[in-house]
């Protein structure tokens, strides 16, 4: 009697599961990767869900993690803010394309008593992360900030412990402005940091800096603004002091775009451009018929990409990201149109 009931309920459960699985299968997309654009993406996908009913699950695990997931083909798209290098394309089981989504600013944020506004140069930031400047009232910092009363407090640099496109762009900038940084530490998604403390993801670095006096960290502007954190004004290559903002980030991205959109924006020549700006991309396979993907799934993905570079852009400015400039949108349209299923374009 009892066992009968158990086996009956197990059967019912199985049927229930199978039913749900088939009913809900097509209405979801999965992505993972960069945490830099995560506030913008989660906002876009929330709106996209209200608009279309399609649930786009984006897991912010870091750029390196996203690339690994797309390489393993366990997600529909990977997110990264360090584009794949030519030499690395062969690691992917199919041809991948980059679709840029937004432009953001990597800000130098810090936690000091009182609401101090600091000016910093790339050189000084490099020296802090090299361990050469260890106190907040070091001459190198006070000289840049006349009139600001800096405390005699040890500096604790905070860096990303996970493989990160934000780290890639931050170290690209430091390598561009400091020869010592370039030779000693270099430029990659993860580097061996001379000093400091690690934290996972943009959210993690922001969390540590927000909670620990004396710390300095680098995060996307949205994270700093959402949490009312102090942000440094940085001197750009034209010698101007630039506050990270939507306008100064847009200015940094105002130049020409290559057809494949793979471009590093740091240390821009633009006079009003913020020097640590970065694009961020979604990476997908050009040919979508792989594994057991349905055409429907591929169509959903392409529709989402198209929406993100057009209508989706309206949601990013409120979070202080810069929308894609017209040349980047144009280049992206061509790339999205080149995505195929069985060799047939999915969108015209």
């Amino acid at each position, binding site marked *: 009697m009892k066992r009968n009931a158990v086996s009956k309920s197990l059967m019912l459960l199985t049927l229930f599961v199978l039913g749900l699985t088939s009913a809900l299968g097509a209405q979801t997309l999965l992505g993972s990767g960069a945490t830099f654009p995560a506030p913008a993406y989660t906002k876009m*996908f929330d709106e996209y869900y209200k608009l279309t009913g399609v649930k786009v699950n984006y897991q912010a695990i870091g750029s390196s993690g996203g690339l690994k997931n797309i390489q393993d083909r366990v997600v529909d798209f990977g997110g990264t803010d360090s584009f794949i290098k030519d030499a690395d394309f062969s690691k992917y089981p199919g041809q991948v394309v980059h679709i840029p989504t937004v432009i953001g600013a990597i800000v130098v944020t810090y936690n000091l008593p009182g609401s101090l506004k600091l000016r910093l140069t790339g050189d000084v930031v490099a020296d802090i992360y090299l361990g050469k400047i260890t106190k907040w009232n070091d001459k190198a910092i006070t000289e840049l900030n006349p009139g600001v009363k800096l405390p005699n407090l040890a500096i604790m640099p905070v860096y990303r412990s996970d493989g990160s496109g934000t780290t890639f762009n931050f170290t690209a900038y430091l390598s561009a402005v400091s020869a010592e940084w370039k030779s000693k530490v270099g430029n990659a998604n993860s580097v061996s940091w001379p000093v400091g403390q690690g934290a996972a993801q943009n959210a993690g670095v922001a969390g540590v800096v927000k909670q620990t006096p004396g710390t300095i960290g680098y995060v996307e502007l949205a994270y700093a603004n959402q*949490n009312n954190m102090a942000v440094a004004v940085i001197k750009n290559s034209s010698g101007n002091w630039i506050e990270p903002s939507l306008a100064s980030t847009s200015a940094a991205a105002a130049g020409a775009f290559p057809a494949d959109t793979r471009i590093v924006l740091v240390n821009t020549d633009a006079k009003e451009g913020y020097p640590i700006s970065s694009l961020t991309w979604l990476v997908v396979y050009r040919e979508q018929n792989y594994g057991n993907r349905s055409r429907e799934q591929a169509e959903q993905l392409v529709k989402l990409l198209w929406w993100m570079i057009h209508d989706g852009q309206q949601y990013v400015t409120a979070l202080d990201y810069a929308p894609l400039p017209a040349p980047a949108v144009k280049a992206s349209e061509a790339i999205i149109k080149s995505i195929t299923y069985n060799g047939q374009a999915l969108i015209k």
Partner: protein
Amino acid sequence: MENNVFTGEYKRRKRKDIVFRLAILVPTGIVVSLLILILAQVVMNGSKSLNLDFFFQQQKPFGEVGGGVVQAIVGTIMVLVVAIVIALPVSLLAALYLYEHKGSKRANVLLDVVSTLQGIPSIVIGVVIYIWVVVPLKTFSAFAGGIALSIVMLPLMISMIKESLDMVPSSYLEAALALGVPRWRAVVEIIVPAAASGILEATGLGIARAAGETAPLIFTSFGNPFLSLNFMAPVSALPLVIYEYVKSPYDDWHQKAWGAALLLVLFVLSLNLLIGTRKKR
């Protein structure tokens, strides 16, 4: 004189007694107060975030205040269902093998394997299931998360079920065999039902053990800001939400992490209490 020596000896013994009593009572007190302090902390911080939205709303975009953790509550139930559907039959059969072949070489090897399995860090189980299940199926899923959790549950459940089988008086089996009942029927219909409460207890503790695991889920069930009822798609879970929210810079998410922690603690605690009261009866 003699009397003095006696009282001196007595005092020394008395002192010794007090010292040892303290040596035992202090650690006991520490353990008890630890539990009380942890519970108090979780209740104090977590109870504020428990409201209707918390139970019935999905996660909001990064940095937006509000929303809830319904996706994690449902996700945790889903991975636990998968885990127990796998772990219960496997551990019951393994325990039956151990019961039937007590002391044999193979049974001893199996016992060693079980205790070694218990020592494998749960993050390793997560990574292995990523390679075994997630990559071949080309998707993160509640299913993969459940498999990982079932491996976490197995060693505990096998040894607990084995113990409860061993506790059934051997006269039951002998009586059944004497009446001409085939051995397999005697085991299935006499021994297993007699150990039923122990098996139920093992199941409860297995669930309690797995419910709080984060590491096996990071690479398997993966997380999901949306409510998903699809077992072959990624789902959120309470430990994953706590892990993600605590690291974040958002005050609202810190608050929700405490709420999720309270929920998890209440769930595990009530499972333990339920088992405890059953045992006494």
